[in-house]
């Protein structure tokens, strides 16, 4: 009495095919797992029998052994409930072995035999397609995400009973409805709604064009959050590979339930009380991607940057540098992609009104210093654009011109990105922001007069080596936006206007 079906376990973002064998033999009624089952799989022991019986199927009152192969791979997640139940049904002759061949099964079971929404189904489908399987059976709620993979038959079943019916040919699934737009698209949001703040809008455009990280410093009410929310609307539309990778991360985190691929770039704005594990990913047995990974190919917005836990902020350095996160726990280590554009916002001082026109800041100097020191130098070094956003007066708001729409800006951004892609094909970088300092200095061609301006700026503004590189990188992006081959003095001047977020930063640097 032996049955065998295929399931998929998801480690990190990748799905791995698992062969689930069931053997029903003599002995006291029991259910035993072998083959490195994780905690969630062990849980299945108590779930599967009620689920099978509730579906009107028979549970053998004999000794059942379930083996998960390969034995050296740790099996995680509740998605193995369905293949385990299916293997048992094959072993007891309630399903035919030849009908299950070529299918992979995934899904968590309830005690009533329902198939519950399960994280990582997109990864399951990708793994099944890569292994050349004909189809996958997944919970009904996850059918849209699995349906994104071409050449794979996807069936969404509401309960275990339908799965058996499908294999017998007595049940056929309904046609898959096309997915609804993902809620990541803030449909109503557009850059055209921002009044005034031309310089901040421009900084967003530069950030989008060169992939630069951005820090906005300003008093409450200056419009930092409003601006940040509009950055995804001017980023180039994601390619299919980008959309797939971002969707896979969302799927693993269980955020894609009921939806198809992400159609726009993600915008993640975690609250400042978030833990390091929440930001970078973690978990003790089941690894879950953090906000940094969920923002992949999109924007990670950290409002009130100085309020975040210091260790969480420090830990962001790895993804900012490598575009990935490695989560290591006792149970093993897992790698998640995490390549995002960081947009951070901060108040200029603890009370928020330092340098404001109308409200007096009462923070003593040393408190302001302490406050700014919370932002570590290494993190700031990875932020190319820093901008002070003024709180506009009513008159300034009323007098301001409306700006361009997001679509307008996005066209320029896409053209600028294209220039960078062709230029940097040899360096494996996609945009100016990802170019290492030495290469920036070697490869950036300066127009007449730019060198001279740069030399004056280094002296008068006390530019550090890194500040110098940042100015070149940003200047390069501004030149790309104009379609210029060389960085002209005006490009560099604009780049230098994005060099400090906090007033007096340079004075402090000079004094120290």
């Amino acid at each position, binding site marked *: 009495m032996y049955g065998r079906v295929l399931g998929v376990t998801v480690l990190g973002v990748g799905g791995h095919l698992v062969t689930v064998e069931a053997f029903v033999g003599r002995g006291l009624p029991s259910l035993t797992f072998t083959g490195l089952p994780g905690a969630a799989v062990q849980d299945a022991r108590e779930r599967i029998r009620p689920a099978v019986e509730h579906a009107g199927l028979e549970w053998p009152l004999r000794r059942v052994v379930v083996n998960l192969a390969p034995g050296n791979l740790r099996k995680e997640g509740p998605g193995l409930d369905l293949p385990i139940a299916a293997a048992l049904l094959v072993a007891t002759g309630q399903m035919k072995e030849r009908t299950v061949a070529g299918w992979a099964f995934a899904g968590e079971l309830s005690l009533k035999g329902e198939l519950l929404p399960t994280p990582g189904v997109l990864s399951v489908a990708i793994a099944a397609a890569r292994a050349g399987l004909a189809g996958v059976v997944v919970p009904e709620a996850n059918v849209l995400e699995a349906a994104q993979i071409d050449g794979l038959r996807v069936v969404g079943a509401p309960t275990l009973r339908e799965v058996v019916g499908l294999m017998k040919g007595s049940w056929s699934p309904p046609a898959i409805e096309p997915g609804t737009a993902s809620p990541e698209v803030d449909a109503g949001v557009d850059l055209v709604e921002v009044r005034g703040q031309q310089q901040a809008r421009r900084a967003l455009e530069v950030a989008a064009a060169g992939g630069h990280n951005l820090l906005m410093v300003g008093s409450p009410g200056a419009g930092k959050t409003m601006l940040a929310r509009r950055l995804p609307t001017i980023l180039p539309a994601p390619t299919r590979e980008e959309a797939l990778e971002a969707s896979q991360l969302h799927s693993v985190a269980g955020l894609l339930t009921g939806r198809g691929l992400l159609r726009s770039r993600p915008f993640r704005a975690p609250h400042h009380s978030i833990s390091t594990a929440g930001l970078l990913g973690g978990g003790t047995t089941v690894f879950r991607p953090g906000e940094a990974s969920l923002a992949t190919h999109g924007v990670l917005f950290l409002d009130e940057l100085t309020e975040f836990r210091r260790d969480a902020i420090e830990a962001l350095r790895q993804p900012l540098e490598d575009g990935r996160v490695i989560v290591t726990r006792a149970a093993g280590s897992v790698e998640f992609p995490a390549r995002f554009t960081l947009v951070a916002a901060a108040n200029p001082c603890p009370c928020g009104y330092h340098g404001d026109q109308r409200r007096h800041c009462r923070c003593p100097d040393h408190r302001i210093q302490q406050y700014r020191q919370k932002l570590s130098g290494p993190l700031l070094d990875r932020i190319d654009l820093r901008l002070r956003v003024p709180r506009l007066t009513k008159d300034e708001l009323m007098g*301001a011109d409306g700006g361009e729409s997001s679509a307008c800006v996005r066209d320029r951004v896409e053209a600028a990105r294209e220039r960078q892609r062709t230029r940097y094909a040899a360096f494996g970088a996609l945009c100016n922001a990802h170019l290492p300092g030495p290469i920036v200095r070697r490869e950036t061609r300066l127009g007449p007069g730019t060198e001279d301006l740069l030399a*004056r*700026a280094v002296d008068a503004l006390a530019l550090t080596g890194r500040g110098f590189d940042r100015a070149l990188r940003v200047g390069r992006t501004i030149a790309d936006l104009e379609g210029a081959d060389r960085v002209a003095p005006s490009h560099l001047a604009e780049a230098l*206007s994005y060099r400090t977020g906090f007033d007096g930063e340079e004075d402090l640097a000079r004094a120290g």
Partner: protein
Amino acid sequence: MRVDDVPRGWPPGFGAGDERERDALLVLSSLQGITPRRLRRVAWDEGSASRCLAAIREGRAGSRLDREYADRVDPAAVWAGLEACDATLLTYGGPGYPVELEDLQHDPPAWLFLRGRPFEAGEQRVAIVGSRSCSALGREVAHDLGRRLAGAGVHVVSGAAHGIDEASHRGALAAPGRTVAVLGAGIDVAYPRSNAEMLDRILASGTVVSEYPPAVPAVPRNFPARNRIVAGLARALVVVEGAGKSGSRISVDHALDLGRDVFAVPGPVTSPLAEVPLALIREGATMIRGADDLLDDLGITWSPLAPPPELPAQERLVLEALTSPIPADALARDAGLSLSDTLTALLGLELRGLVRGAGGRFERTLRPAGGG
């Protein structure tokens, strides 16, 4: 005896003369409960520092806490502390005691600890006071006032606190010139600590004074008392920036009591930091627009700065359009230039030191176009 019946100043030779008298004064300087006014009344009753101290010890004057405290203070230790930081003790009316302080009617200090360069008769001093949390513009105005005054040979007096105090001291040091820091803490205490480096520089060329013996920590209630010495030492007092209810107001009241000239630097009527200076101007203080006005009013001659050189056309346009602190995009509109050209011009002006960015806006610096 009512305060008004007390004669002016302190009894002749109070705390001076022999070592016993000096030690008694050192103990009195360490008391924290009794105010200078009350002590002065006791002093006139008793006649000398040692008898004053005896009165406190016997319970005829001061509080029980004063008595207990007086028993614990070791004058030899205080003296050792003074010697350790190379401080001298000045007594009222004694050698080196600045006569200007005798103008303080109710509470001239009976003693003063001094480090650095001693006071000299006939030297000109001007006090600069203002907010600790000042704006970038206020900092620059105070720095410039300090620099120009010191450059003209006037000694700059201020309180060694953050903000305007610090900027005016630093301006005087940059001249280079002399400056006097009046501490609200012990004579050897660097407070705020981040200004320790500045105090060292002041000591090298100028003067640090305090009413408090070594190691007395800075407590806010000492600061108003410190302000009377700041006002007393100077012939004129300049208020740069101050929000309502600030310490600057106390300094001004002392200066008015003393009959000193009070000057105020105006700011925008909407700025909270301009509250005190604008109120003072309305009450009759002399409005100054900067160091030139102040030096003129003080009757100090100065030579005008070099005329401004020509600016490139776009920078001139931008500078002309820059009338009040304004974001770059609004400035671009006013100047009729593109944002990119405006930013280029602004960087040029910034490199020339004519413009600065503050709070996401741009504003002119004090320097006349091209000068300095």
